[in-house]
């Protein structure tokens, strides 16, 4: 799942910096248009429903956080 999330992130934002320690939202790597596009792709790929209430920085600050969010929505 992690690899797929990374692929989707690279697709949404080809120049994204996924280095360790980089907080994707807090450090401004992803902006709102990216998040909206990312949510659409994740919903389709993993057949989940990420809603506005999930759009908090903690859920998108890292690949690991995104994976955790997906897993929680698949349960």
């Amino acid at each position, binding site marked *: 799942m992690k690899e797929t999330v990374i692929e989707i992130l690279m697709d949404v934002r080809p120049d994204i910096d996924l280095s360790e320690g980089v907080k994707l939202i807090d450090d401004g790597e992803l902006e709102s*248009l990216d*998040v*909206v596009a990312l949510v659409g792709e994740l919903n389709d790929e993993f057949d989940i429903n990420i809603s*506005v*209430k999930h759009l908090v920085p903690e859920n998108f600050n890292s690949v690991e956080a995104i994976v955790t969010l997906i897993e929680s929505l698949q349960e």
Partner: protein
Amino acid sequence: MKKILELDQYWDLLNKYQEKISDMVYNHMMLPGEAAPHIDEGKLYYEEQKDGIVFSVKERDFCKLYFYISEESDIDLPEKDRPQLIECIYREEKEDSHIQKLRKKTEAAGFCPYVKNIRIRAEIKEKDLIPLDKKNLRQDLFWKYASEEDILAIYELWEIMDIYNSTIPEEKKLKEMLEEKELITVWKEGKICGVARVKLENRRTGSIWLITVSKELRRQGIATELYRLCFSILKEKGCRYVIQWCDEKNQAVLSASEKFGFQSDGTISRSYIQK
């Protein structure tokens, strides 16, 4: 309209309507990072409507409206106390159907297309940098960070800008920019002839705003010097890229920025107005 006092309040309202409206469309999804500065400045208002919610960012001379409404409903305008703009932000190649629907609703509500801004982006190159320890850009030009005594002259320079299509700060905000050393001025013969704002967007990207050159001193290479200065300051702050928003018809900015390798990054802001 009611004022939003804290970020959680904004978030709760957005959640409430997202849960209530399954087919929501919006002109721009304003995430917390974007809403927070408006809330801090006391500019963000809202109105709950039958089929959705509208947020308004109230500037001095106009307001920008952000609708989150049902796909089936029409735009229901809040009471008008100043010209209203609806700004649709999207990526050119991926204009979502909800944006298309909102744009149609905006035109149906009597709004006129006003301006199309594009976001341009460049990589900072060594050849464009200047040494910041030297205050002279040319024999006849020098630069400095703006200070309080420059405020009047800066506002005078900005008078030529389109008030609905710019981000001219109010004095309180401008003073914060001075403290953050975000405003730079270029001087000729004892007068400010150019100004620009530089801002950090993220660890690698900076932005240029409100770049202005005195009308009577254009075509003298001052804008080019301002760009070099902006690039050098942003490079010193650790940036690798620079972004700037500009009106797609503003040839002066487009040709000046082209020299520095700026190209569209595909992000578009289309504003509609009802004066």
